[in-house]
């Protein structure tokens, strides 16, 4: 649960300004982006996702570096992605 995982914003959610669709290592899920209300977010941006919430906006290169790092972690990242797959935030 403590991992921050990079997700790429791939779409908005109609009627829900606090929600957005992200792609995390090929898993697409809705997350809450309300904590980044002070940031100017748009499709293509990367965010660090923690328990279904975008915690920080990060650069493309940082996202790639964190992804490489997480993939190297093995099981903890696989568990996190499995948990994300089960998620259905509305």
């Amino acid at each position: 649960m403590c991992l921050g995982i990079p997700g790429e914003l791939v779409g908005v959610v109609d009627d829900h300004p606090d929600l957005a669709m992200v792609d995390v290592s090929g898993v697409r899920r809705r997350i809450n982006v309300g904590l980044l209300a002070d940031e100017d977010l748009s499709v293509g941006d990367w965010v660090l996702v923690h328990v279904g919430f975008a915690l920080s906006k990060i650069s493309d290169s940082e996202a790639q570096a964190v992804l490489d790092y997480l993939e190297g972690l093995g099981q903890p990242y696989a568990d996190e992605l499995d948990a994300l797959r089960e998620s259905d935030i509305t």
Partner: protein
Amino acid sequence: MRFVDEYRDAGRAQALAADIAARCEPGRQYTFMEVCGGHTHTIYKHGLEDHLPEAVTLVHGPGCPVCVIPMGRVDDAIHIARQPDVIMTSFGDMMRVPGGTGSFLDAKAAGADIRMVYSPLDALKIARANPDRRVVFMAIGFETTAPSTAVTVLRAAAEGLENFSVFCNHVMIIPAIKAILDSPDLRLDGFIGPGHVSAVIGCEPYEFIARDYGKPLVVAGFEPLDILQSVHMLLGQLADGRSEVENQYARVVPWHGNRVALAAIGEVMRLRPHFEWRGLGFISHSALGMAEEYAAFDAERVFDLPGLRVADPKSCQCGEVLKGVLKPWECKVFGTACTPETPIGTCMVSSEGACAAYYNFGRFSRERVREASRA
């Protein structure tokens, strides 16, 4: 240097390791605490201690939220979960944490409806779909996770949901660091500060550590290179006679933190007068409970809880490990009676617990080798 290939920039890692060695004053020992369990995981997974000079010792701090939940709170949560109309929801990490009367997994096997969720917002969805059941979210975590719980409660309130509540166990990192600084057991030269917690609280709350205790602190990222760089920065401060808060992880951590997240916590939660931490005992103003205004969403007010304090098993030395006084393998039951499959203490449960991290990756660390060579 078998690990260096895994680093983002192997050349930089090698140069840093050399610079770190050069910055150590001959004859001086340096002890730094990495507060966050994510850092502990990185240190063991990448055998970082093998790349540091012998003069530098890293000790592992209390920053694993699963590890610091006292047994009595687990028992209270299981008590709630056993109510016939309750669906208890929890992050997967909590499932095997032992209380005095077993874990969530044990309670689930005995018939309690306990479901793993990825996000508190998933728990909210379960509440919407089950209006005839009471849905409780077992909220754990430091300031990284507390805003998610707070926003979820705000959402539940806005929707007028009457069957959702939170069993709030959110803890705060600053009082824990202060408790360690005030503890006579340990002499530290500086801190590697937590990354994601700091994305929420920023760097300013650590300033008292540098100012009042004269200890440097460097907020650090999670990659091996980040940690090496932070050790390098800490040694630089000590060499210059400085004690400051520095931000090595500025690519994620804004100096002032996240205003929206802090406001959500401030709206929904209040500081508890005191809270028990596993192994550390009661620490004043170290945890968050639900604000009076959100009493309807507070499982501690909705349910009648036993609230019993349960002492840790006598053989368990998680307290000493969480304070950095003992290394994981120095615990009497490490790797024998206590393993990740059958944990006695919480440090063996979470992958970020110092004992589990060491058990999984730490077999080649230099202390272990030294210890073996003495035997």
